[in-house]
């Protein structure tokens, strides 16, 4: 190859088309953040007003939005890891319910104290997820099937343990009473503005963002989803990574379950239904590809908050629940279409 030919091809090739693609890709990359901004602006414009006060922006309303999304948001954060490996976890909602039942039961009967109880429940959640991941890997089963079964098992365990009753948590010092400090999960801090449940969400999301983007494990997650065979041949411990991500969803579902019990002061075998779908929706809207290998934690968080804000805006305007579902469905399709356009532009969607 002559020198001039080299320079020519290197310089001429990607220059003009590239920049446009980058802009478009950037837009898609932050689609959920942009979506969140759009929803917020819409919320302000269409918000009902009382005494000149924009109800959407009222501190109580804002706190409600971020509190309402905290449980599914925590789950969505874990789900992001799984989906980046091209997997799925349907057991998360049921596991939340099982964890809330476990938390309430242990607090009201065993009297282990706060920290041992929480650690135990969270460890159970992680173990549950790890078992699902192990089964899926060992027997080469689709995670869809394994976690669908996991959903039934977790729900069944919750029903057995709770005897299909609400397990109410009463606070105080003494047998059968939970430590009063646990009730803080239902409170708001900082001048009664920030719900504690939301703080848990923020902390979980911050840790997850860090792990996904700045650790070797995070890179492994992307590699496994991007091309499992290539990752394995490159020496990535693929099986361990695939089991770990399900342990992570199990762990965050248990955290969400503890938060749930603390917020509502009971454990119930019938809560958390459909949370898996809300979480998956948040992840997809956040720009993570169901094909694996690409995704963003910030996107997931924005996606989760956006779904909550959208529901809130529609509620404030007394728009019925059916329409909320339609709107959510339309947004999911839009997010998926944008992803597919990017793939096609990269010439990889043929």
């Amino acid at each position, binding site marked *: *190859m002559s020198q001039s030919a080299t320079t020519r091809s290197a310089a001429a090739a*990607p220059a003009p088309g590239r920049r446009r693609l980058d802009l478009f890709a950037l837009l898609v990359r932050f689609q959920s953040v942009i979506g969140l901004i759009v929803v917020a602006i819409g919320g302000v414009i269409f918000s009902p007003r009382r005494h000149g006060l924009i109800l959407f922006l009222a501190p109580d309303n804002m706190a409600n939005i971020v509190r309402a999304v905290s449980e599914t948001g925590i789950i969505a954060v874990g789900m992001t890891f799984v989906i980046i490996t091209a997997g799925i976890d349907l057991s998360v909602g049921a596991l939340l319910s099982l964890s809330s039942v476990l938390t309430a039961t242990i607090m009201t009967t065993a009297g282990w104290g706060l920290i041992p109880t929480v650690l135990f429940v969270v460890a159970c959640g992680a173990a549950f997820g790890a078992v699902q991941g192990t089964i899926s890997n060992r027997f080469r089963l689709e995670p869809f099937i394994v976690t669908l079964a996991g959903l039934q098992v977790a729900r069944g365990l919750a029903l057995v343990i709770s005897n299909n009753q609400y397990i109410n948590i009463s606070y105080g010092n003494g047998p059968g009473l939970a430590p009063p400090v646990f009730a803080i999960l239902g409170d708001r801090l900082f001048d009664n503005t920030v719900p504690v449940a939301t703080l848990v969400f923020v902390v979980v999301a911050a840790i997850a963002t860090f792990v996904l983007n700045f650790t070797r494990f995070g890179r492994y997650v992307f590699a496994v989803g991007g*091309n499992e065979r290539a990752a394995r041949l490159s020496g990535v411990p693929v099986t361990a990574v695939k089991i770990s991500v399900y342990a992570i969803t199990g762990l965050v579902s248990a955290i969400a379950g503890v938060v749930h019990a603390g917020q509502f002061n009971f454990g119930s075998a019938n809560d958390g239904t459909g949370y898996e779908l809300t979480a998956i929706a948040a992840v997809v809207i956040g720009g993570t590809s169901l094909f694996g290998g690409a995704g963003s934690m910030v996107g997931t968080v924005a996606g989760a908050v956006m779904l909550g804000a959208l529901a809130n805006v529609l509620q404030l305007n007394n728009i019925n629940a059916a329409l909320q579902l339609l709107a959510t469905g339309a947004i999911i399709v839009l997010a998926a279409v944008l992803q597919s356009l990017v793939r096609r532009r990269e010439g990889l969607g043929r």
Partner: protein
Amino acid sequence: MSGPVETAAPLLVMRGVTKHFGGVQALRGVDFDLKRGEIHALLGENGAGKSTLMNILSGVFAPDDGEMLLEGQSVRFDDPRAAQGAGVATIFQELDLVPSLDVTANLFLGRELTRAGVLDRPAMRKEALTRISVVGADINVDQPVGELSVGRRQIVAIAKALTYASNILIMDEPTAALTASEVERLFVVMREIAARGVGIVYISHRLEEVPRVADRVTVMRDGQVAGVQPAKAPQSELVRLLVGRPLDELYPKRATVLGKPVLTLEHARFTPRTERPGWQAPEDVSLIVRAGEIVGLAGIMGAGRTELLTALYGAAGSGKWSGVVQIDGEPARLTSIRGARGEGLGLVTDDRRGSGLLIRDTVGRNLVLTVLERVSPGFLMSRARESALSREAIKAFDVRPPRPEIVVGALSGGNQQKVVIAKEVLGDPRLLLLDEPTRGVDVGAKGEIYARVRELAGKGMGVLVASSEMPELLGLCDRVVVLRNGRTVAEFPGGADEHQVLEAAERSEDETV
């Protein structure tokens, strides 16, 4: 305009065809013509543009510019169905067969015979038997295609295409997977089809097949037509057109100093725990790769070249090695990928998109994949170290454009291949296993890859290369070992006579068939 000799009008004329993908100019104003009853060979190195040209003719891609005349009429095929409707049939390199369906169902896919709206299985089966016998193969039409060997699948694909090729039949490297006797049978069939007035475009990079089957040959290089010749033209002239320079400049000088053996196999045998059909396990392999040496693995399709490399790399599933398997003179346990990597092995697979690269991830993130433990010895990634390593690898292999942040799938085939090899080399292997290291790579990048591999060997790395391209093995390697049915059967020095090596590779086929 109405010329006196209508028969002289070519069946097909393509004029000034241009096509680019992203930044890569695949075709730059290509002219091509085909007559009725002619077998026209289309020769070119990988990446020369021959497949792209034929994909345009068969409606897979739309050209950026240029025109196509079929029997004097301007035509334009927007999709493969339109091309098929005009009697243009293609047998693609990636066979368009459904592995889970049986041979009969594949032959009639999309054109099923029905009676009163219901599939007419007996009629299809009968017709399938006829069609298979036309290509002279004994293939069970009730067998799922996935259970057939690659060579037999190829024949099914040919039988399928023949049924609607009324004008033009395009064959994209049909002989790549076939044994010598199957190739002969195929050539007979091709001549029969041509005699019926069909024009055949025969894509190949096997020079020696051209005079045996074709009438004319068009040679392509770097997206252009390098020349059109009668098929009987001297081979040296075709080589000059093909490569654009005398062949010996393509390959670097051979090793002068060899070190101690890195890999020693003596009657080594790998027994997989579960037998897989079509997977030729290494049965009895004896060979030595010394430090500084490039050893080639020759053999026909199915001889077990890829299988030997993957088994050495511990990537062949669970199983057991027996016989002598030594790395640096010490017994080595090569039964898991991490174990093999721990012994200092690195593998570049023959399928960079399927198993080599995270195709949607960036060049930089791909490059450091094998050395993440070095980039981040603790929990945290060191972005600085990562960036330094990937820039170093990009520079060493001259990846173009030299930007680690680009998505690797956007690079040309040659540059993707450089990234795959560079990724393994970053891991500092003692023994580098290369499987088809220049598949789908243009001549320029080929030369660069050869030079770099030789340079690495010069620094004391042992290299074991499997390739189906005999000139590549004989040009690049210090020694070539021939595999047959999973056994090493012969060994030749680099630069040996190609025909002798081929003969050794194919001998047993002729004995057993």
